[in-house]
Structure formats: C-alpha cells, structure tokens
C-alpha cells in the first residue's frame, strides 16, 4: 500500500503544485503591484518543492530503515543457522534452537516441544528464560492442551496478543510465569511436524511487553526450517552412534562365545591367586577354590547351552558360500590351523535355506572336532556337485579317527553330524587313510535347477 501511495504522490503533487502556481498567477493578475507576481510565484515554488521532497524523503527513509531491519534480522537468522549446524549433540542442538529463537524474536520466554513418533505428545520439552528451579516447581511438561495444543492440532503458526482473553486458553499451571503475548510456530521436516516453538512476551526497546509482529512470525518460520534440519541431523547422528555399538559387538563376537573365554581366563587368574594364598591364608585359599569351582560349573552350563543352542540365528540369511567363509574365518581366529576353502563349485548349487543351515552346522561340528582333537596343521574344505548330489569334503592332516571312534560314534559330535545328515536325506562317511589324517565326506541331494541340460528339441 505504501508503494501505491508514493506513486500517486509523485503524480498528484506536481499537478497540484502547477495548479496552485497557475491559480496564484490568476489571482495576482488582478493585483495592482506587478512585481508581487514574481515573489509569490517563487515562494509557492519553493514551498511546494520543500513539502514534496520532505514527504518523499521521509517515505524513503522509512523504507530504508525497514530494509535495514530486515537485513539485520536475516543476518541474525543466518548466524543462528550457522551456530546450529556446528552442533551434532542432540541435547545441545535442542537447547540452542530455543535460545536462538528467543533472541531472534526478542522474547522473554521460549520453549521447544519435540513430538514423539505418534506426533501427539511431547517426548521432550525444553525451555529458555525460566530458571531450572522454577522449571522444577512447575513440574511435568504440558500435555497438549490450550494454546500449545492448538498449534499441535492445527499445524499452523499462531499469534495471540492477550493469552488470558483467548478462548482457546486453558490456564497456566501452578508456578508458571504470567504471560501476555504469544506465538507458536511448527517445526516441519519434509512435510512432517517434528516439534513446535513457543515464544512469549516479546519485549520492545523499552523493555515493555509487546505483540509479536508478522515479521517475527516470518522470521521464526524461516528459523524453524533451519532448526528442523539441525534437529534431524542430531537425531540421526545419535542413531548412528547406537548402531556403531551394535556393529562393534557383532563384529567382535561380544556374545556367549567370547564370554566363555573371558570367564575361564578369570578363573585361571583366581586359581593362581589361590595357589599363592595357600602359604599365608588357608581359609582364603579354600574360599578361592570354592569360587573357582562354582565359576567352572557356570561355564559348563554356558557351554552346554551353547552346543544345544548353537545360536540358531547364526546361520540365518547366509548362503552356503558365505557360511563356509565365516566358519573358516572363525577357525583361523581361534587356532593356528591353516584353513583352505575350495568353493568354485558353490555357485551352481542352489539349496533351500533350511538345508543350508543344517549343512553349516555339520561343517561347524567337524571343524570343531578337528580343532580340539586332531592336532592337525591344516584343513581343506571343498565343494562339488554332480547328478543332483552335492558333495562336501573336509580333510585334515591330524592324528586321524580310529575305527572304534567311527563305528561307536562315541562323543555327541559324530552322532550330531549323523543325525543332521539323516534330516537332510544325505550320506556321511568318515575316512582315515593309512597315511594319516581324516576325511569327512558329506553328500546331500539337491534339486537340479538347470533345465538347459535336459531340454529337447
């Protein structure tokens, strides 16, 4: 509207001016003193020019101040955005968001409510301008009633100049500071509202409470966009930190298996200590031994669970090649064995997930036996297939299995393997040649999924 006013002014004013000059001349045409003509004309011209330029310049000045104020605000907004992006810690980001919003709008009080997944309740409610002791006295965060709730439900900015007079107001909780003016701005990330900024009691240059302006709202809405990005960043960063914990645990087998080694090592140290105490304190030594025995019993229980359980999830989602590679890796990590895999035949073999899991369990059992009993230096695992059968061979250069061991299948290990082979509908052989070493040969029927070989015509 100001622009139109200026435009009309520049048209009307000169017209008025020329009109009044002519009118003046007309008046003076009837005067007896002719040199009055010139003086009056000049006076009118000057007066007109002064009035005109004053008005115009005042308008220009006002506009300039507006522009400067806008530019200052944008600079402040830019500064705020930079400050925010430097932070990755979620707690710090949230506090900064509400502190900066308060600064930008000149408000006495500020709050940031971060919505939980449902988008209905506040997961977090951070304040600025209220001392922490006051905050504690006020108590739990708002539940989404009144004006605060209004912003949540409408998903739009809301400006109120008399909080208590507004019919949506639902009352201040006890110890809550009195507030008159209010603005609420939703923080949106990719169309979804993740939280709301609430500011109250904007202070003017004299320190008096005043209304939040249209400009304040626009500024806060722009800031809210920046805040959304910073908050999302911090939330994602926090998630990746937690993910790295899981990865490290998984990677280094922070599971039962690792725990067993740790427990046994600790018991070993305890027994050493007991040995030492035999000289000085018999009673303490006795207690130490009791503790060690108890510890060992716990370890036995853990191991038994581990065998029975064999981490049923362990081989899920792995194909045969991946599973064999992992077993080989484990064996290398836990022994001084040279482990060689010959899996060129693996790619053409398609097995159901259930069969894959069973086969991997058998291989694991076999490798475990080799590690514990064979006293071998090297293990070879090879895979081949023909005529609808897959053959897996595990051979080592150790002491070999005696006839007795094979036929009696003593030890749950060999028995386990036989049982699983039966489930697969396959065959298993344990061979110990004269030269030494052992060969386990497992044959499993697989579906032939290569129709090309049988096509006719």
């Amino acid at each position, binding site marked *: 509207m100001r622009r139109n006013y200026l435009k009309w002014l520049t048209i009307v004013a000169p017209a008025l001016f020329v009109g009044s000059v002519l009118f003046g001349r007309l008046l003076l045409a009837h005067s007896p003193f002719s040199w009055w003509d010139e003086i009056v004309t000049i006076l009118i011209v000057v007066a007109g020019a002064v009035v005109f330029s004053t008005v115009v310049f005042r308008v220009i000045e006002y506009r300039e101040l507006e522009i400067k104020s806008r530019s200052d605000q944008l600079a402040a907004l830019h500064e705020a955005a930079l400050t925010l992006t430097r932070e990755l810690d979620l707690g710090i980001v949230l506090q900064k968001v509400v502190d900066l919003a308060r600064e930008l709008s000149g408000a006495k009080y500020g709050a940031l409510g971060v919505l939980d997944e449902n988008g209905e309740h506040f997961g977090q409610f951070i304040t600025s301008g209220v001392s922490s002791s006051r905050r504690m006295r006020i108590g739990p965060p708002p539940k989404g009633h009144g004006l605060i709730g209004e912003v949540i439900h409408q998903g739009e900015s809301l400006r109120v100049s008399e909080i208590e007079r507004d019919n949506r107001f639902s009352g201040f909780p006890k110890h809550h500071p009195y507030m008159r003016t209010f603005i609420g701005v939703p923080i949106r990330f990719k169309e979804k509202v993740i939280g709301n900024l609430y500011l109250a009691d904007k202070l003017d240059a004299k320190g008096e409470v005043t209304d939040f302006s249209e400009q304040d709202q626009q500024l806060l809405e722009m800031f809210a966009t920046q805040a959304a990005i910073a908050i999302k960043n911090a939330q994602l960063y926090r998630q990746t930190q937690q993910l790295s914990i899981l990865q490290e645990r998984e990677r280094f087998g922070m599971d039962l298996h690792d725990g067993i080694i*740790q427990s046994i090592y600790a018991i070993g140290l305890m027994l050493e200590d007991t040995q030492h105490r035999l000289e000085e304190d018999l009673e303490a030594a006795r207690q130490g031994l009791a503790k060690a025995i108890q510890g060992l019993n716990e370890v036995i229980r853990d191991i038994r669970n581990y065998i029975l359980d064999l981490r049923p999830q362990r081989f899920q989602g792995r194909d045969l090649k991946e599973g064999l590679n992992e077993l080989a890796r484990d064996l290398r990590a836990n022994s001084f064995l040279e482990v060689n895999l010959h899996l060129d035949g693996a790619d053409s073999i398609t097995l159901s997930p259930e069969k894959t899991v069973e086969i991997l369990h058998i291989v694991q059992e076999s490798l475990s036996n080799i590690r514990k009993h064979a006293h071998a230096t090297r293990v070879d695992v090879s895979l081949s297939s023909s005529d609808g059968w897959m053959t897996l061979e595990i051979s080592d250069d150790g002491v070999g299995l005696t006839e007795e061991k094979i036929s009696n299948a003593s030890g749950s290990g060999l028995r386990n393997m036989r049982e699983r082979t039966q489930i697969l509908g396959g065959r298993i052989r344990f061979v110990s040649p004269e030269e030494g070493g052992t060969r386990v040969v497992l044959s499993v029927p697989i579906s032939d999924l290569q129709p090309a070989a049988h096509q006719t015509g």
Partner: protein
Amino acid sequence: MGKIRILIADSHENVRTQLVARLQREPEFEIVGQAANSGQTLHSALVDHPDIILIDPVMWDGFGIANLRHIIAQLPDTQVVVLTAYADTSLRMSLRRMGVKEILTKGIASEELVEILRSLGAKKVNSSKQRHP
C-alpha cells in the same frame, strides 16, 4: 626410582578384578586406576597419568577401539598393552596400525604378562632418565 603406574581397563568385571589382584602383588607395580568402559578409561588415562594402560579394547559400550585411538593420539608417552580374548587378525591389524606394540591374548601365563609389563616399565624409566641427565 618410582613404581610402574598401571591403568587396567576391561569391560569384564571378573577379569578386571582378578588382574588388579594379580598385578598388585608385584611390588614394582602400582595400579593407579580401574576402568570398565570407554569413558572411565579416557578419564583415568588423562587424570591418573599411568605409565602403562593394560586394556581389552573390545568394550561393551562399543567405543573401546575408537577411544583407544584417541588416547594414543592424546598421550603419546603412555604405553599401551592390549590383552584381549579375541585373536582376530583384522583386529590385530587395526591395533598395530594405531600404534599398539603389544597385543596379548587372554590365556597368557601371568608370569609372562608381568614380565612384559616390567620390561615396558623399565623402558619408560630409562627414557625419562635420558631426558633428565
């Protein structure tokens, strides 16, 4: 000639307490701190100024290894001995790249552990003697 100051950092409580008890029996060692997680390890390393950090870097909080890298960078004069249950080659390689010279596996004879710590401690004393003739 002062005692060799050692910080013991291990997430597994039994192992940690047993190590403390065992090493405390050696007169030349002084256990200046115990740490159960990365935060405690870092704090003790910076505050207690141990000569040697005996650590299993695979920690329950998942930051053990990154934290160790940080400690090695911040405290180049502190010696680090890794004592771990897991003998994985890739872990070994990462640790060596970080500058860890001693990587031991749990199951090591205690005498050997004590000997290694003792000789590392002596190195420290000698190098500081050289600096202050």
